């Protein structure tokens, strides 16, 4: 026990109010700036659409980190796999390169079913990765750093297997995957609030909706089901929860499955928005996901969602003349957050234990 003298307690309370006050003022200023900027609302909506995908992708990282305290560097590869699985489940043919050139599946699934199927297959790959790259090392009690490297090795292998099998070309999903729909929605000017009418691509709305549904389902799973409760117990203390009769290894498998599932769905969503641009599709996204989870606080699930949305919106607000620097935004944010607030936006400072 540590004795706390009166003055330091007062100082702490003062600091608490000051920091919350500062944060509140900053948020109000930010919202005003967004609403009054020339195309503020338009950027906001664009940012939220991609931010939703960042959020669910980062959730996959964060779920595994919260339980194993290891970053699964194969998550970017899972993301790529999910996008490819969806492509092939829709019955589309492989391109001209690779060992499987011009092959196609004997059936065609409607796009939404294929997307879920792609996610499930990606989840199974997640399970496979846990069995081959994580569990053997965990059973040996190896350094987490080594597990990180073995997950990287698996990522390199997956990316090159994809390249060998289906080639490095660009794959595009079928047009109008959700049936006939207008290409964009015109939201009008919100009664003169913005100078130009706000136009949102339908795909963006779908992406945002799918990612938010995923977030809600995942939140329900973690907070509302018995398995989710066990998962949280394992995240809190794996040894104690296994002593209490929780099958830790099984729950870790479940975590990898869910992580792969959301990663695969994120891959499909990004593939919808742009294209599936080859086996290295997931690498940059994987790095950005790291920025998102640090911003939200490593292992913090609501934090990952907030972090994803914040980074998506921040990227959308990059002025068009500096658009080339957009890729760096996430990393500048990552660097600053690590220096100023390493526990993340929503996190609390960790107490250094000896």
């Amino acid at each position, binding site marked *: 026990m540590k004795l706390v003298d009166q003055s330091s307690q007062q100082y702490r309370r003062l600091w608490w109010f000051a920091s919350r006050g500062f944060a509140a003022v900053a948020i109000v200023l930010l919202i005003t700036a967004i609403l009054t900027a020339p195309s503020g609302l338009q950027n906001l909506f664009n940012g939220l659409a991609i931010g939703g995908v960042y959020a669910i992708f980062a959730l996959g990282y964060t779920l595994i980190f919260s339980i194993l305290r290891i970053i699964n560097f194969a998550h970017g590869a899972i993301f790529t796999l999910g996008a490819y699985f969806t492509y092939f489940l829709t019955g589309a043919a492989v391109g001209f390169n690779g060992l499987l050139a011009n092959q196609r599946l004997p059936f065609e699934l409607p796009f939404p079913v294929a997307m879920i199927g792609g996610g499930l297959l990606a989840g199974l790959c997640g399970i496979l990765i846990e069995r081959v790259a994580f569990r053997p090392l965990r059973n040996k009690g190896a350094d987490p750093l080594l597990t990180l490297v073995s997950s990287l090795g698996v990522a390199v*292998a997956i990316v090159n297997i994809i390249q060998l099998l289906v080639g490095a070309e660009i794959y595009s999903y079928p047009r109008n995957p959700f049936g006939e729909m207008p290409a964009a929605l015109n939201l009008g000017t919100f009664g003169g609030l913005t100078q130009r009418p706000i136009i949102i691509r339908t795909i963006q709305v779908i992406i945002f909706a799918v990612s938010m549904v995923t977030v809600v389902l995942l939140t329900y799973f973690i907070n509302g089901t018995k398995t989710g409760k066990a998962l949280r117990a394992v995240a809190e203390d794996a040894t104690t929860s296994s002593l209490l009769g929780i099958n830790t290894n099984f729950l870790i498998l479940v975590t990898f499955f869910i992580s792969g599932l959301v990663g695969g769905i994120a891959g499909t969503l990004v593939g919808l928005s742009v294209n599936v641009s080859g086996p290295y599709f997931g690498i940059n996204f994987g790095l950005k996901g790291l920025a998102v989870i640090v911003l939200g606080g490593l292992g913090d699930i609501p934090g990952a969602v907030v972090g994803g949305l914040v980074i998506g919106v921040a990227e959308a607000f990059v002025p068009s003349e500096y658009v080339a620097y957009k890729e760096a935004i996430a990393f500048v944010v*990552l660097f600053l957050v690590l220096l100023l607030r390493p526990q993340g936006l929503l996190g609390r400072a960790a107490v250094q234990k000896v």
Partner: protein
Amino acid sequence: MEGFFSTYGSAIVQMALAGVLALSLYLPLMAGQLSLASPGFYAVGGYVAALLSTQVFTGFPNGSYPILLVVLEMVVAGAISALFALIIGIPSLRLRGIYLALATIAFVEVLRVFALNQPWLGGAVGIYNIPQPFFSATRVEYLLLALPLLIGAMLFVARLERSRIGRAFVALREDELAASAMGVRPTYYKVLAFTMGAVLAGMAGALNAHILNTWNARQGTFDLAILILAYVLVGGSRTFLGPVIGGAFLVALPEIILREVAGAPGLNPAIATFLRDGRLILFGVLIAVSVFFFPYGLITPNLFKRRKKTKALPVEAAKATPKVSRGEL
């Protein structure tokens, strides 16, 4: 021999450079800091050499570029990398473990995007036509520069490991709190280790800019960081020999698979094709497997000690030691 060098000349030079890069990551790791910033400094060094040799020291036709100027560029590149390391290192070395790794990844990526968009760094094309000091297609003459750099770095690190500074690094790695209680200044030594690593990476970059003849933003990326980390961990992160051997091994491996194994006579063509096109798959699997079977890397400090011990131990003494089975315990 002639044929050997014409096939493997550039691979051998790259093996030496991989050793230097691996040492640049090993130095901060000696002090317990997982820094993935080496590709950033490597890129900085390459750009320094590229700018100096194409903008400042002009007028030398290809093949007659003085070797001493390359050495000078390497020194300048090392100094500028050190400067970058101080600017980046002092704030970010307060972070620990995975947080530092992430911050250094961020540094590498920001640098890459910056370089990609600067016209004076050549943009996406980069800087090309970097003059060569040697007339050669095989690039094997670059060993004249790469090998001294590697050996110098190895001697430096080997001496460092036995010096006061090296012991301070190891103390920090083993227990930072205890080390600081014993009067080791954590921040000072961490920044020192980080800066030393940056100098090595910068010099390797400067040399490689000449070897490759061109330098662009694709040279220092996250992929390279991962590769260097694999060099260190596959080779062994507890002695300076580990990273060097790991680097040489992992650079040589895909080349050997490509040229020797896949080209072996009498091999099933399907397997040969797989080895040629899928060698990076094997590479990834190998990294994952080697981490499992050699958790301390291929080269460990005990590798040499243990052998001496078993030699010294008489056979009778070994026989006489009572065997305890699990049941008895």
